[in-house]
């Protein structure tokens, strides 16, 4: 059952950390790690997913001598256990920047898949088709993840995450769930039936909803990195953005409460049984008003609990909007779109979207959500298909549901977008830029410059989130402990000089 322990890597960073300038306000570092599933159809002889994934990573291996690398946009691309291609976005201060990075990951995966497909056709026939699924469950019931990372001020204890944030994360799936056809019927989430523990330090052994493995990739005395596992992979751009921004707002309330030593208002909202509450939320369409029991003994529906969070956050924002907007506004890339920043409030926009989506759910108007909520978009198409072809089989619907998640050769998602049926937050050009360019206001900017210089000079290099290393001809390292800082250090400049920059 729930484990609460700091499995520390604190001694790892032996160098004296420089206190981040960002401790006081509402700034945050956002990241999204997405595992993709791989399959191939139309082959003349059998080929397993592992081989397809290895073929996809052939160009990476010949470039980096490894299936684990960092790209010029600062993100990490690697082949995870179980032959899952995985992409972890570079550190972003602005949620829409994290979204752009995540979409860049889709594009990178698509490029690798189509190249692999060309190669595989030489051996497996001209109809071999590679599928790369941005989803969370395969046909045999193996689950895999889309993990969100939030840098959280360390004075927030793990108990608060479990008791105050988890009920929000469970019920937020009403509008961030990707939906899935299951033996139990259509559920609004992909993963609810695969998560059993509330909080744990492991992810592969057990299936927690929030992981506490303590790898902040930042000053460990100032921050922890909250690793949220409960979320689905989203195709809807709005859904990816929404899960980041609303979770951020709730975290702001919790952080400020501990900073001031005052209650957040979320203290009594923990579920008595988070895993069963999670499964009930996933079956929302069967029983929208299902009563969930809180540890206090009170019962409440998932939607009513979301509404409580909304009201509490709205009250908080009324007092802190300027500071909260400022945390977003430091992002230069967000500023460059602004014609008049003074009249603009990103926080108010988020609250507006949140309110409207809850209103639609309260009115049982799921059609109104179909242009932004993944499960509602799928459900709308499935129902239309059933009307047109009453003989459509369960397996055909399952195929269509997988097709929606296929970033390499899928049709349904692209059709919805090209016909204006899914809200787009990013232009193609913005996504294309994010494939090559790192966010300019975080440590990722330095990593991006380093990778680009290393590749151009042909030097051997390695990297992780806090280290940049040239391994040959001369070993030299730069440590970047503050994820908020894009400022080049002397160490970094020396590294770049070795690379001829």
């Amino acid at each position, binding site marked *: 059952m729930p484990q609460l322990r700091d499995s520390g890597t604190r001694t790892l960073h032996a160098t004296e950390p420089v206190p981040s300038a960002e401790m006081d306000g509402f700034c945050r570092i956002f990241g999204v790690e997405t595992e993709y599933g791989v399959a191939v159809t139309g082959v003349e002889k059998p080929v397993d997913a592992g081989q397809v994934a290895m073929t996809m990573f052939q160009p990476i291996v010949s470039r980096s001598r490894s299936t684990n690398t960092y790209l010029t946009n600062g993100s990490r691309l690697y082949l995870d256990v179980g032959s899952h291609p995985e992409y972890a976005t570079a550190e972003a201060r602005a949620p829409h920047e994290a979204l752009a990075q995540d979409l860049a990951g889709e594009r990178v995966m698509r490029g690798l898949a189509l190249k692999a497909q060309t190669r595989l056709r030489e051996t497996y026939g001209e109809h071999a088709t590679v599928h790369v699924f941005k989803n969370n469950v395969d046909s045999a019931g193996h689950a895999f993840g889309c993990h969100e990372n939030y840098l959280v001020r360390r004075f927030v204890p793990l108990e608060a995450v479990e008791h105050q944030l988890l009920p929000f994360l469970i019920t937020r799936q009403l509008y961030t769930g990707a939906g899935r056809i299951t033996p139990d019927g259509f559920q609004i989430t992909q993963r609810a039936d695969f998560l059993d523990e509330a909080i744990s330090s492991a992810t592969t052994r057990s299936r927690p909803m929030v992981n506490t493995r303590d790898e902040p990739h930042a000053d460990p005395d100032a921050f922890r990195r909250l690793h949220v596992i409960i979320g689905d992979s989203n195709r809807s751009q709005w859904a990816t953005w929404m899960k980041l921004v609303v979770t951020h707002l709730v975290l702001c309330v919790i952080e400020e409460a501990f900073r001031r030593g005052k209650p957040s208002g979320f203290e009594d909202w923990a579920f008595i049984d988070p895993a069963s509450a999670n499964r009930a939320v996933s079956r929302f369409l069967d029983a929208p008003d299902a009563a969930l029991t809180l540890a206090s003994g009170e019962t409440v529906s998932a939607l009513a609990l979301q509404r409580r969070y909304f009201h509490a956050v709205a009250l908080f924002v009324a007092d802190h909007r300027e500071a909260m907007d400022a945390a977003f506004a430091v992002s230069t890339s967000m500023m460059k779109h602004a014609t008049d920043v003074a009249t603009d409030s990103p926080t108010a926009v988020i609250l507006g979207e949140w309110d409207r989506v809850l209103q639609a759910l309260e009115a049982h108007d799921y059609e109104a959500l179909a242009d932004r909520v993944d499960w509602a978009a799928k459900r709308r198409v499935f129902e239309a298909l059933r009307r047109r072809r009453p003989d459509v089989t369960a397996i055909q619907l399952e195929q269509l549901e997988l097709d929606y998640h296929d970033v390499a050769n899928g*049709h349904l998602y692209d059709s919805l977008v090209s016909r204006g049926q899914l809200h787009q937050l990013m232009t193609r050009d913005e996504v294309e830029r994010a494939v090559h360019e790192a966010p300019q206001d975080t440590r990722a900017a330095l990593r991006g410059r380093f990778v680009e210089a290393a590749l151009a000079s042909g030097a051997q290099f390695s990297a992780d989130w806090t280290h940049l290393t040239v391994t040959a001809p001369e070993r030299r390292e730069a440590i970047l402990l503050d994820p908020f800082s894009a400022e080049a250090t002397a160490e970094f400049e020396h590294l770049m000089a070795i690379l001829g920059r």
Partner: protein
Amino acid sequence: MPQQFEQPQSQTQETHEDDVLAQSAPQSADQSQDQSDVLDDILNDIESTLETNAEEYVNSFVQKGGE
């Protein structure tokens, strides 16, 4: 949400929020087109997907698990 910043920012906050939502309405589709017509077009787009072997397609996707 980048689009929100491409708009003139002279409105009050409330109409600004309305604008954001207005932008979320279908843009590239013919506005006068009935929603059911759009759904018909989408079903036509995916017709070829449904003609492939659904059984093979679904069962081909087996991973070893991750995370």
